[in-house]
């Protein structure tokens, strides 16, 4: 830090929302930290949003309430926003700006890291391999999560996405040492935060969790910084300490709202639905911090959660997220209403990294064919249901009725499982075969003859084949 830069100014020209303008200043850099101290000793943090000759526009991270044009001193620190990361972060709870919330002192920093992060060199990236077994059939078999992936949950208000996230955190099995969780809550309700903390406590995971919480009532700018601090902590743990880090970001919709609020306040030209044109780049700056690096053992896997306004998947937030992340898990209101848990709608869900990480030598040789068949058959079931709802089931052909039966079994036996049930991948695959065997052999065009011979459950109660498979 250059002491020369540590100069203080008093007097602001204008305060608007969470921004202020200050004039007659020198030597102030773009995107650097600003400390604003009030007469009562209260210190807020801000960053410069725009700098020009003799002026700067500053965003105040703690909100501007109580600030006046005269009563504060402004100090430009000449460095970007830093976070003191250390191994001791594990088991701690921080606010959105990296200050402890649990009453304990700040951990002694091992390294001061720029919270904005740097772009990972594409040539240094390592392709994500090794699946994370979540114990949930719809994810493990049909939308496999891979270490180093970013796989968001697209949900709606009132749907149990928090419950599913908590179940994943509890059940996730990752090979190798040092599994930990970084949790960033942006604009979450107090109850939600409480729910996660209690869950971590109950499963004994809290010692391996770093929490960053900015609750719903905290200033919107704090919300914007929360994921940056959380991901900085994650990068430290993954790439300095070689840990397998699972980052849960909830709720990204709140983050985007905050970004829109700030952008509007700055008078920027909006693109879609009032969101700024750079929403894509901004989100990419967060999501792209997931991944693996060659020659490094650690990894960052991200599960961002977002609530789709009006369950609209084409809304800019889920839309742009889907363009950046490697797939999505869609939580469905209809399944939820029918009491199916987890209400994951498999058809619009997708895991892009699944294709390279399943199959022979990785999971099981029939995995990809079975998954593909389940998708295709379930999609067909959906079409038949649509027809049945118009012309009535009586008019359907016998084959169509078999499909309806398959659809029901698929939802009740395969998708449906209890909150505490941890299915191994083998178990999930077997349930998949049980369900798909409902259909006649000729309908299974996505599965090779060999696999059908090996695993298809014959109708006449030929138990032997299926038992053999389980032992195999």
């Amino acid at each position, binding site marked *: 830090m250059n002491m020369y830069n540590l100069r203080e100014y008093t007097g602001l020209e204008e305060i608007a929302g969470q921004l202020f303008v200050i004039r007659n200043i020198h030597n102030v850099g*773009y995107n650097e930290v600003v400390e604003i101290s009030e007469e009562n000793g209260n210190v807020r943090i801000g960053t410069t949003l725009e700098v020009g000759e003799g002026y700067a526009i500053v965003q105040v991270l703690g909100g501007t309430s109580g600030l006046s044009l005269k009563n504060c001193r402004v100090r430009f620190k000449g460095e970007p926003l830093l976070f003191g990361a250390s191994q001791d972060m594990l088991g701690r709870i921080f606010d959105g700006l990296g200050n402890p919330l649990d009453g304990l002192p700040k951990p002694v920093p091992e390294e001061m890291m720029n919270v904005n992060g*740097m772009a990972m*060199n594409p040539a240094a990236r390592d392709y994500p391999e090794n699946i994370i077994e979540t114990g949930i059939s719809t994810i493990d078999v049909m939308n496999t999560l891979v270490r180093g992936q970013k796989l968001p949950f697209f949900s709606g208000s009132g749907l149990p996405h928090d419950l599913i996230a908590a179940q994943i955190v509890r059940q996730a099995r990752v090979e190798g040492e040092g599994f930990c969780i970084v949790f960033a809550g942006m604009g979450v309700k107090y109850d939600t935060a409480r729910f996660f903390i209690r869950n971590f406590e109950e499963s004994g995971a809290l010692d391996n969790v770093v929490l960053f919480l900015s609750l719903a009532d905290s200033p919107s700018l704090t919300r914007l910084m929360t994921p940056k601090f959380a991901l900085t902590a994650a990068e430290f743990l993954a*790439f300095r300490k070689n840990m397998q880090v699972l980052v849960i970001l909830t709720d990204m919709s709140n983050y985007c709202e905050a970004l829109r609020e700030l952008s509007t306040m700055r008078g920027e030209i909006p693109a879609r639905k009032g969101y700024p044109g750079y929403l894509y780049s901004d989100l*990419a700056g967060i999501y792209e911090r997931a991944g693996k*690096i060659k020659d490094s053992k650690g990894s960052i896997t991200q599960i961002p959660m977002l609530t789709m306004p009006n369950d609209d998947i*084409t809304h800019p937030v889920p839309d742009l997220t889907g363009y950046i992340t*490697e797939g999505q898990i869609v939580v469905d209101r209809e399944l939820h209403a029918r009491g199916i848990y987890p209400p994951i709608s498999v058809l619009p869900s997708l895991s892009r990294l699944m294709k390279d990480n399943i199959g022979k030598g990785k999971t099981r040789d029939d995995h990809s064919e079975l998954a593909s068949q389940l998708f295709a058959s379930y999609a067909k079931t959906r079409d038949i249901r649509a027809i049945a709802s118009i012309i009535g089931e009586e008019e359907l052909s016998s084959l169509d009725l078999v499909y309806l039966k398959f659809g029901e079994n698929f939802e009740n036996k395969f998708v449906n499982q209890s909150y505490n049930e941890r299915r191994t991948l083998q178990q999930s695959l077997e349930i998949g075969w049980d369900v798909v065997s409902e259909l006649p052999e000729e309908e299974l065009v996505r599965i090779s003859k060999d696999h059908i011979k090996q695993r298809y459950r014959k109708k006449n109660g030929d138990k032997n084949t299926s038992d053999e498979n389980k032992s195999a």
Partner: protein
Amino acid sequence: MAEVAGSVIRVNGPVVQIRCNRNLKMLDMVEIGAERLIGEIVRLKENIAYIQVYEDTTSLKAGDPVYSDDLPLSLELGPGLIGNIFDGIQRPLEMIRQQEGDFISRGVHINALNREKRMHFIPLKKQGESVQPGDVIGEVPETSLIKHKILVPSYAPAGNLISIISEGDYTVEEVIAEIEGIDGTIFPLKMYQRWPVRKQRPYKQRIPVSEVLITGQRVIDTLFPVAKGGCVAVPGGFGTGKTVVQHQLAKWSDADVVVFVGCGERGNEMTDVLRNFTRLIDPRTGKLLLERTVFIANTSNMPVAAREASIYTGMTIAEYYRDMGYNVALMADSTSRWAEALRELAGRMEEIPLEEGFPSYLPARLAEFYERSGSVITLNDRTGSITIIASVSPPGGDFSEPVTSHTKRFIRCFWALDRDLAYSRHYPAISWIESYSEYVEELKSWWDKYTDGQWLEYRYTILDLLQQEQRLQQVVKLIGMDVLPNTQKLILETCSLFKNAFLQQSAFDDVDTFCSAQKQFLMFKAILIFHRVSNELVKIGVDISEIRESSVYQEIMRMKTQYPENQIDKLKQFVDSIEENLRGLEKK
């Protein structure tokens, strides 16, 4: 080194305003501040210049010096491009990694082409011969596939070669030949030339397209083919498989050189491409795919201004290889990210926005880009071509948005990706209703050489059936399948077979990932024979379920994986036996 040209007066994200102390030109390159961040002049107003900066501008201050040597931002074109991966302004990412570590830091200045590496130069001209701009004076075996022609730059004078170096290993900086111009000036030639990133490279004339770019993807080659020198857009919402289509084409299309531009997309995707290309073998040449590919990677989290430039970087490199007489395929994934980068920069410069916030010059920029594709006679009288395969990412999958709708005006082939197909894992999810290709008539004679002259007829037959099927499906939705006459039921059955057995193609199946033109045509024929014969059978009262359960039907369903490329003869035998086998049902 560059001289001081002014100082910073305002910093707003990637756009910086400077006050100039001398006359600066549009699109000249500048370096800003102590770290010498690279930028480009994009607007001049009195003595103020607006600069778009290709790196993160954190910590830039008002008053920071700005340097310029009054030259446009340029690329280095020479041997060593192939197999390499560059960022949006052609900085070599692997070298940056070795020098700077796993994360990209700022102010890195590394030459695009390795200055130490020696390359084997074989002269093709002799001392004293006269040369023109664009002439080939020698070649370098860049990889085992690509003979890199060393071209006389178009900015060099025409004249006599007064010296040329003998065959041997040289670095790119060494002077390999000298031209004496008519006015007596001496022009030294090196193995590389510099070329402004946004400037189109000259050629003699455009020629009409006539050859199919074989992609090995059935739905594309058979139904919606693209010509070498054509341009095609691949629009689709997220999750519909744009990137997989791009990757498949980069892998299997029969272009000589592929330039792959990852523009504002995922980092892991670039890793995936790199990883695959370093181990996959090109089925036609038996060599690694890497040996014909140049990568440009500007992932979504890298600076937005460089994303805007990456498309031009890729295009200029593609033109350079075209000028050597190669057929080049330029894959741009995705042009929407490029358009969004334009929008973001326009917003920062406070330009008046039009629809969805895009600047008014969006259509002009798109047109400029797509018009750089084409088949040409080069300055040295070879033919070369650039095929553009550009993916478009419409927000919400809505094809009426500005980028998709403007793109449609400038392309002649359109592969629309459909979300419903993708949801049921029908890949490639190219919609047969919305897609089109205007190259069909031009490519007929090419296809006829490979088939029995019936390709066009077959194509229209199946497209007609698919149209009918769509109408019938609507009827079925209202009143059910049972009321349809058997011949119409058969149309549904044939289309279902065609979709499953033909259109669907697995990119991850070793046999199915590439399908040669011959195999495609045989498979196509099989399904049409099936339809013709079944139609006759149905008319005389054979039940459709009987046909569906027949072994022939099952066999057709699996022919894509059953017959690898080296067993085309067997496939042919099978196709010839379909009619007889089906007629067997008649007797029952």
